[in-house]
């Protein structure tokens, strides 16, 4: 082999790598973020394969959904933040109308009215997961930060209306996430610390009021958390079995597809909300910790993008998307380990299910768009 051939080969490889970089830039994809997401998805698919009982049909189903979600991410990544900002109020308004429609005409499933069939079946609450932080960021974009009391009150209304509409369905988990995504925007925008403390204190009587509005099953979940053994075969069953699954996994786990709790049907909802318990049982503490580390990386990258963002809107939106993702991870893992009440929040990118994954990926698309459409501002 002559030297020039080797040289050509090396430069060829470099060119190929360069081509991938160029393609990613052209598609407005953020490499590190995509890498982190794909790693989580890969781990998720492995765990899910075990959780669905090695059912190939369900597993491929999830793979297809993942593909669709990635396409949604790519589409979102193409939209510059200025464009998104201009359309934000309309999107929010459309979401509100759809939410009202759901309450009036929506399809009932599992005791809740969540679905709307407009050609395709979807949950309008998913739109709100992005529309609420976008709207909040849009409103704060032109105002001086930190926000004052007047604008804050209006923002509270902007957040509260969709939250209550969704809680009414009832879908406590989603309502909680949407409220969190809006509140995160305010906090990032510089909500005074004193006010935050005051609000936290006010939350106690607020919680009591909320208690009165809660459905019996929701109250039961809270009570069960306080004492799961009070009803070991009823409401407490999920938490007890989940803790047994995780605890019995130990440091290294029982091995992939060998979790007796998961494989022998002791663990309820093991492919959806409780998939983290399968992970803990089969892959052990180290496996669970690795997954958490991957999440931390993705969230960190999101926050980095937010900090780098050129304008208020993108900054607040990127920060909210990243931290809402954190809320997902925290609430799910805390719920499965019995730290917080069981609320229907899936483990993002891992749990079986399609709709929320598309929204999540679209959010990541927005993050990528913010990162890749950044004009080089002079320092």
């Amino acid at each position, binding site marked *: 082999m002559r030297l020039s051939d080797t040289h050509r080969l090396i430069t060829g490889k470099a060119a190929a790598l360069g081509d991938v970089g160029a393609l990613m830039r052209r598609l407005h994809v953020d490499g590190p973020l995509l890498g982190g997401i794909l790693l989580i998805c890969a781990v998720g698919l492995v765990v899910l394969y075990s959780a669905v009982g090695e059912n190939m049909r369900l597993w491929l189903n999830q793979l297809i959904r993942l593909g669709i979600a990635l396409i949604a991410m790519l589409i979102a990544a193409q939209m510059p933040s200025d464009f998104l900002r201009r359309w934000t109020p309309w999107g929010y308004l459309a979401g509100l109308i759809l939410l009202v429609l759901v309450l009036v005409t929506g399809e009932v499933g599992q005791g809740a009215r969540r679905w709307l069939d407009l050609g395709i079946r979807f949950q309008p609450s998913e739109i709100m997961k992005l529309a609420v932080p976008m709207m909040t960021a849009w409103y704060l974009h032109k105002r001086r930060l930190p926000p004052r009391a007047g604008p804050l009150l209006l923002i509270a209304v902007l957040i509260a209306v969709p939250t209550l509409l969704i809680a009414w369905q009832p879908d406590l988990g989603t309502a909680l996430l949407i409220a969190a995504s809006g509140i995160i925007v305010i906090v990032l925008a510089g909500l005074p610390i004193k006010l935050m403390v005051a609000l936290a204190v006010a939350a106690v009587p607020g919680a009591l009021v909320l208690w009165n509005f809660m459905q019996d099953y929701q109250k039961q979940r809270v009570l069960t958390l306080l004492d799961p053994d009070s009803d070991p075969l009823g409401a407490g069953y999920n938490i007890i079995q989940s803790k047994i699954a995780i605890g019995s996994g130990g440091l290294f786990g029982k091995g992939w597809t060998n979790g007796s709790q998961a494989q022998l049907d002791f663990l309820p909802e093991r492919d959806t909300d409780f998939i983290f318990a399968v992970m803990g049982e089969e892959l052990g*503490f180290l496996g669970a910790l690795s997954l958490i580390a991957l999440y931390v990386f993705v969230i960190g990258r999101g926050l980095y993008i937010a900090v780098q963002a050129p304008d208020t809107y993108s900054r607040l939106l990127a920060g909210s998307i990243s931290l809402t993702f954190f809320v997902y991870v925290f609430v799910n893992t805390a719920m499965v380990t019995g730290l917080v009440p069981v609320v229907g929040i899936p483990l993002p990118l891992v749990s079986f299910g399609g709709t929320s994954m598309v929204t999540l990926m679209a959010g990541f698309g927005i993050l990528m768009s913010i990162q890749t459409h950044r004009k080089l501002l002079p320092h």
Partner: protein
Amino acid sequence: MDLLSPIKDHHSERRLFLARVVFASVVGFLLLGLVIARLVQLQVFDYEAFAAQSQGNRVRIEPVPPIRGLIFDRKGRVLAENLPAYQLELIPEQVADIDGTLEGLAQLGLIEAEEIPRIRDLSATGPRFKPVTLRLRLTDEEIANFAIQRPRFPGVDFQPRLVRHYPHGEAVAHAVGYVGALSREDLQRLDGSNYAGTAHTGKTGVENGFESNLHGDVGYSHVVSNAFGRRISADSLELADTLPIDETPEPGENVYLSLDLDLQLAALNALEGRRGAVVAIDPWSGEILALISSPSFDPNLFAVGMSIAQFSALQDDPDRPLFNRAVRGTYPPGSTIKPMLAMAALETGATSLGRKAICRGFFMLPNTTHRYRDWKPEGHGEVDIHDAITRSCDVYFYEISVDIGIDNMHDYLDRFGLGQPTGIDIRGENRGLVPSKEWKRNAFRNREDQRWFNGETVIASIGQGYMLTTPLQLASAAAALATRGVRYQPHLVAAIEDALTGERTLVEPRRLDDVEIDNPQHWDAVLGAMHDVMQDVRGTAYAVGGNAPYQMAGKSGTAQVFSVAQEEEYNEEEVEERLRDHALFIAFAPFEDPRIAVAVIVENGSSGSRVAAPIARAIMDHHLGFGSHATE
């Protein structure tokens, strides 16, 4: 930049944002730290507790029933065994159309149409994966029929299992007993955990009396199961490695009966299907050589399970085939107790060997007009105690009855074991009744009824009135006569064998209190009279015993089923079959060296000497090696 918007300080906003992101990150790390700390707590510190809980979750202990011990006769012939049989099962979750399936099976004749609603209920209530038994034992033909049609019936299949089988069914049913489905009542009596996997238990006879020997000890196997108790094939999950070690069940002990199957069959043959009972005992050990209650039934029906119609047919049969006459049936002993009462009379001085009486065919108590008849209307003429036994003169016993007194009668009959449980090793024995003054005081509430009348003593002297005995008691009493008072507890089980080692433990004969007799001459007199019953031309059973190749002793009895009114002639021909007298006979042989004692009762057999005695003879012939069926 929009001129209407307030002036924004981009630099300070960026700094504020950065500060908030740092703040959020700190909060975030704290919260995640909480989750990780929780994971450490669950997976590291509490690992062992949770691992144990998860083990308990998935591993279920499944009982493995022991194999029931076998039952043999004294010569080692199998009376009860366990045979593999195929039962038809249905797994509800695998059956799409339960009604169609059941109807199809009914058309094939594999289940009865009336059973369909019951089976449908059963398959709807239990766990969907748990098999429902449709039929307990399929014949070879039915298995073949079903095998051809199997594709039509997904979820229905036949499964092998062990079924108790009694090869000699009816012949030994009342001695061996039978097993039946374990009931809730049984479980209250038995050790529930040891019967965790057992479906059948001994209900009657030796199967019941020796349940604790026959059953064995349950074993356990650990099976992996899911949250609904469904058994999971362990190897497919690689979960089997850590399972605790199984415990194999310990088979039940084999039981050898003292019963001789040949003798049993000979006795059955001699009974010729008549209602009645036969008990034969080895007088020097108490071993029961034959125990028959007729009519009998097929015990296999209970082991396999029968339809309600079959069961009620057995239950409602007027001949009561399920009733064990040999140990539970009580009959007036009639004249069979005369030898024992003669002992009482001689010992108490109520009569002497030389005292004679004139029998005119009836007896009247002083100052009364009631005539107590002799079975022989024209009377026996002049008789002594020997003749009174040999020719079974009732009047002689009537004459001395009041002198003996009911309490002495009770005392001596009691010494022979009448009126009390013999202690046989199976359950359900009836104790019979030998009246006494005390008994009557306690038995009746009305003061008038509590008084004992001499007339009652008179009829008690020929084994009538209140007196009731079981065939087993009579056989045991005959054995006590044969041994001149040495008594052994009658028992069916001769030996217990360890099914694994083959080690046999013989059941020691249990000697009871001897019959206390002061004057041995009285034995000679009474036993001599019993000898002459069969060997003297005037003896009531001379026709049966006279031509025998060995010497024997016996006593006939004919017990009234209903009382014959005064002055009324008893006409056998006209009396309806079921109102005829019971025929009884007790005997032992050979006379000098007794090896067998027998009691025979033929219900409504009319005459002890003519009907019951030949049966006793046939049994003794067989046992002593002179029978047509002898195999010894």
